[in-house]
């Protein structure tokens, strides 16, 4: 019961991470987490720690790359950047999400009409 929900969140989070990196360029884990929180208008209650599972998964698939570097305030951190195949994947996933939300929107609108035609 908890598994299917986790799956959805997982996939969603992966997409959010890719999008963040695509939009913002190279970032470290904390930065990505904060950026997602801000972009979602704090509507997503994100356990920041879960982002690291997402990052390692994307990394292992070759969609993002990571290297240790130094932040502007001179702190050592691991910086992530999106790869070329990551961008392609992002385009595919974004299109998929767009279609899904469109369909969901229509479905739910139909429900408000009273369910009949």
């Amino acid at each position: 019961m908890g598994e299917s929900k986790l799956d959805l969140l997982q996939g969603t989070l992966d997409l959010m991470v890719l999008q963040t990196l695509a939009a913002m360029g190279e970032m470290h884990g904390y930065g990505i987490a904060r950026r997602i929180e801000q972009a979602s208008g704090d509507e997503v209650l994100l356990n920041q720690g879960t982002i690291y599972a997402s990052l390692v998964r994307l990394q292992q698939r070759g969609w993002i790359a990571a290297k240790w570097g130094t932040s502007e305030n001179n702190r050592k951190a691991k910086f992530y950047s999106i790869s070329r195949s990551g961008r392609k994947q992002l385009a595919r996933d974004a299109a998929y999400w767009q279609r899904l939300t469109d369909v969901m929107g229509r479905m739910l609108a139909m429900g408000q009409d009273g369910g009949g035609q």
Partner: protein
Amino acid sequence: MTGKAKTTSGSWQSFANRVWAFFHKKPLDLDLDAEVAAHLEFAVEENIRNGMSAEEARRQALVRFGGVVQAKELQRQTRGLPWMDVLGQDLRYTLRTLRREPGFTIVAVLILALGIGANIAVFSVVNTLLLRPLPFTNSEQLVWIAPPPTKCGLSCATYSTDAYDQFRSHTRSFQDVTGYFAFSGTDNLSLTRGGQPIPATSIDVIANFFQVLGIRPAMGRAFTADDAHDGAPPVVLLTDAWWRRQFAADPAIVGKAFDMNGKQTTVIGVLPASFDFGAVFSPGVKVDAITPLDLYGPPRDEGNIITFIGRLKPGVTLAQARDDSKAASHIMCWNLKYPQTCGDYKDAVVPVPLKSYIAGSLRRSLVVLWSAVGMILLIACVNLSNLMLARAAARSKEFAMRSALGASRGRIVRQLLTESLVLAGAGSVLGLFLALIIVRWLAHQGAIALPLLSTLHIDGAALGWTALIAIFAAMLFGLAPGLKMAGGNLQEALKDSGPGSGQGRKHERTRSVLVVTEVALACMLLVGAGLLLRSFLKVLEVDLGFQPDRAAAVKLDYDDSVPGDKTGELSEEKRRVIFQQVLTRVRSIPGVDAAGMVDYLPLGQNRAWGLPFPKGKTRDQFKNVAGPLVYVVSPGYIRAMGTRLSGRDFTWDDGPKSQSVVLISQSMAHFFWPNESGVGKELTHGGSEDLHVVGVVDDVREVNVEDSTGWQIYYPMTQAGPNGAELVVRTTLPPASLATSVMGKLRELNPKQTASEFRPIKALVSHAVSPRRFFMMLVAAFAVLGLLLAALGIYGVISYSVTRKTQEIGIRMALGATRGKVQAEVISQTLRLVATGIVVGVVASSGVAALIASLLFGTRPADPATFVGVVTLLAAVALLAGYLPARRASRINPMVALRNN
């Protein structure tokens, strides 16, 4: 979504990365730790910037992060192979559990090792003899060309030089045809390197032999047609084994010459270790050297001396080759000079796959052996199942507890399966060692006349088979108890404290069924072994026509060549003098009862010279009668072999100038003169010379102990040319004790006499029956193993049930039950189980017996003695296995039993 849209390459890359990550836990964990620490520092910094106190900033950072431990664990699971980690946990837990119960572990591993080891060893034998292709290039193209089985021995399975040439030129199915000289005996080569001549065995092959088989010498070259010409310088190819043994693996041996049979013979090459002539073509004989066969003489017309081995052209089917050979057989001549011999081979030239010629007759025995060993594995598994069930019953609370604490049913089954796999794995490793020992031992049993046995080894296929049966066994004995355990009711298991409650009783029923199965399987094995044993004893009782006890044979070297002897008469005379001298001297040795010479010993090689028929009749009257096997013997041979004779033996007066005399076998005499004695009758080959039958001797099992062969005819050495000479000595003392004095006498007469082996005639018989003994011994060993395992199973179940009923027995004894009564009850429980097993087993055994009927000799499949014996044995062993727990039950102290629990 990401998960769905991933590409194949992405998933492969991901998998590879995960495997990599699995093996690099440490650095990755450190990396993650550093990253998480940095994350928290960033968060704390930002929080302080936003005006929080240091403490509050840290608290908030941790809250927003979520559980640090959980996040790290999630990352670890995502990046690695979590199921491998679980497996690791299961393995560690299993090893801990098994270490805690060393008794159970040792018994289980030993049982499995025996079962699996026996299986690997037998698989190796089956693989070598039946499954693996012969050790030649494209061996499936090779065919053995011979007539359908006949009673006239090797002579009918061989062909003449003219027939060979004609066959080669009149067939189109074969790339080429080769062969070897079928009539050379053992120790036919004597190597002199200073000192005593050393005996060795060589085989003459047609020059293209190695090309046809696809064997390249490891060193030097193979024969060419030039090596086989008359007058060509003598050359020899050494086998790898002889080269190592006799020539200390001299790397520069090619080109060196040695004195072999008195001729300087050049070594032209060494054969690869993988080539073992004896293993393939004459099981049980070690061939040391290969020499080229001079097909075209002189003398060219030695008769049927060549076996045929052909290599089919690619794409030619066996049926095509058969038709082709059949057509050729109609025009093939024994000797082109005698046109009446053309067509002699009609329909007697039939190719069969070389593999089936070599091992085909063993197929059924091997299948039986394989089944027997499979049954052993089944019994072992049943036994293990029983042990596991007993353990599972004891552990049911542990499992219930784990399950109550949240372990899924799958996880518990997986845990149990891991345990059985670990046990099976350990059993396989030990079994593999066991098999290695058995296989190594078998490969060195040169005396067993089974083909290819010396090439036996554990190969990749055997290892694969090991893995397969290990997993199969683990499933068999692990899954059933596992499912039973996991399927059990949690509540009940927690409540079930043992005696008399539901779950325990159900287990006991399962265990009883297992024991019945075990007893039935053991019964089948024992019946099979019993029948084979009876057959073997019957074979040993066969009247061979000679007395193998207290007789021995040694190969006699003699030189009967006379320079300038054109007609052969001079050398005939010389031979007579040598033989007479040898026999007179040998007979004078104290302890020697009789002595004589023969060119071919029984149960070895043989030959035929066509059919002589009674004078006054015509050949046409006996068209379909096979000729007798021919033996050229000295006076006294018949007596030395202990063969009964009516009429007279040959004497030294039966010389070249006197009338031709022969001895014939009983059944031959009976065929020609059914109602009168054959002694004094005359036989003819159709020519001018008559053969006077001076004596009739018992039929001798010449080819095979188990089948009566064709007839025999004996010619005196003084009238017919022998093909070498075996001196047979009958002694009043054990033959071995006379070996030195006999050899001494022979060397006195002929300093060149090689140090040949002094072979007891009994050993010839033993060699001939060795395949049957081999299979019988193996099946018997498996049956004993099966019986032991079954006894162990019975003991286990009864003993366990006594333990469980301790309290009950205690109460009953307190209420007045006597020791005898308690004991009787336990024993009757045993007998009930065993009786059921025996009934099932006997029924199944009748089926087994019918299946192996063709392997039996002089024994009916429903042999009552065997069945009664097996049932008695099983019952006795079962009683013993039940008696021990019964005695324990009767000694239960009621007070102690009631106080416990």
